[in-house]
């Protein structure tokens, strides 16, 4: 009979007028339905079916309510409540949609960040380490060099951490699956979706920050060292290495002569380290060869610089719209350039 009471709630609650009127109408309709149920039960139907048939024969609650409200009027408060419930249902549907979009967006971000970090670790970081070991990433002055070293330290903290995580990726993945499974299984409540969204957001934030820091720590040294990179020659680095070897060997000979074996071991270690560095440098071989030709190389660089500067005269001639002057300055450039490139 709860079904009947529920039906009557739906029919009667919106009828305008005093409460006694609604109660009166409710009582009347209830008696009708109870009589109908009794008749159907007497005809052999089970109670549930009898109730269902009685309600079906009586008509849908919205239709009956509509007819009664047309006659008696409808309650404003009920209308407001109904509209609010309708709005809430629409909002919940919209909320589900937006929550799904947010979940998908964050999940995509996490996947992309993970790919970026993996790609950086596999391809970029080894190249960076090689260039760094070749001593090419040095700033023009020591103040700025500190930034390079800080970026380097940050990267070198991050890289082993990521490598450690990657080494045990299977365990991490298993742990994640277990924790997620427990969350989905055990956690209940209205805030569950928000909690999931927060977890995804946090993970995306951490990965984003990690990716950003990785990118910055790779980029900063290159940007800072770029002017020096253009200015310095690989010969300078190799020259420093050969000087370091010479110094270490000189100290070794002195310590051996003084029979200071402990010092000798240290000096040998320094020499060894210096020669290992030199052997590891990609630019070492051609640079060593060209060290003998250093004056020639310096002259070549100077000639190329002169040729480059002479183009300023060409530009001024073009701006002055002077074709004869353009021809003359262009000839000067060609001569300088030819002279530079034909040096052997």
């Amino acid at each position, binding site marked *: 009979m709860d079904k009947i009471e529920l039906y009557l709630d739906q*029919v009667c609650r919106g009828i305008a007028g005093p409460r006694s009127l609604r109660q009166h109408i409710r009582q*009347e309709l209830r*008696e*009708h339905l109870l009589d109908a149920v009794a008749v159907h039960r007497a005809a052999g139907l089970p109670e549930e079916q009898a109730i269902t048939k009685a309600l079906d*024969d*009586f*008509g849908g609650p919205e*239709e009956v309510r509509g*007819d009664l409200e047309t*006659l008696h009027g409808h309650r404003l408060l009920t209308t407001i409540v109904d509209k609010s419930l309708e709005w809430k249902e629409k909002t919940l549907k919209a909320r589900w949609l937006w929550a799904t979009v947010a979940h998908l967006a964050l999940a995509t971000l996490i996947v992309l960040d993970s790919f970026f970090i993996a790609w950086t670790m596999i391809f970029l970081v080894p190249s960076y380490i090689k260039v760094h070991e070749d001593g090419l990433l040095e700033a023009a002055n020591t103040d700025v060099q500190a930034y390079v070293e800080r970026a380097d330290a940050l990267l070198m903290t991050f890289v082993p951490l990521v490598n450690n995580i990657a080494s045990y990726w299977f365990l991490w993945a298993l742990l994640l699956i277990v924790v997620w499974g427990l969350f989905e299984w055990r956690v209940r409540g209205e805030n569950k979706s928000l909690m999931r969204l927060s977890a995804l957001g946090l993970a995306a934030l951490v990965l984003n920050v990690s990716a950003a820091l990785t990118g910055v720590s790779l980029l900063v040294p290159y940007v800072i060292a770029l002017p020096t990179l253009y200015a310095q020659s690989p010969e300078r680095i190799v020259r420093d290495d050969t000087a370091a070897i010479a110094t270490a060997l000189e100290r070794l000979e002195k310590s051996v002569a003084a029979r200071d074996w402990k010092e000798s071991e240290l000096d040998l270690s320094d020499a060894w380290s210096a020669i290992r560095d030199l052997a590891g440098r990609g630019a070492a071989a051609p640079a060593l060869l060209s060290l003998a030709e250093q004056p020639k190389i310096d002259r070549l660089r100077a000639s190329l610089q002169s040729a480059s500067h002479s183009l300023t005269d060409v530009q001024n001639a073009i701006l002055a719209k002077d074709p004869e002057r353009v021809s003359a300055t262009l000839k000067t450039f060609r001569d300088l350039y030819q002279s530079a490139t034909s040096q052997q």
Partner: protein
Amino acid sequence: MDSELLKGTLSLLILSLLSRKSMYGYEIAATVHRDTDGAFNWREGSLYPNLHKLQADGLIAGQWEEKDTGRKRRYYHITQKGRRALREKLKSWNELCQGIKRILELTDGQD
């Protein structure tokens, strides 16, 4: 049967039934169902707005009565005003039926 036709004549049916004796809501619905052999396919819930309208117009009156079963039912009976209204409605109904019958006979004749 077309339920729209029934809607317009429900008041007439109610007054007609109540002119025989006092009845309560379910009794009216069951009597209509029985006397028409179930020809009317209607929503029983539409009975009550009509009953309340007729009561508001003073054509019928209702009171709660408790029977042996202990349950209270609201019995309706026709008033004097209701009897006069019933006579008017019957007259209109008969005129309507005559008019429609004439048109339908003419249409049949042409087929």
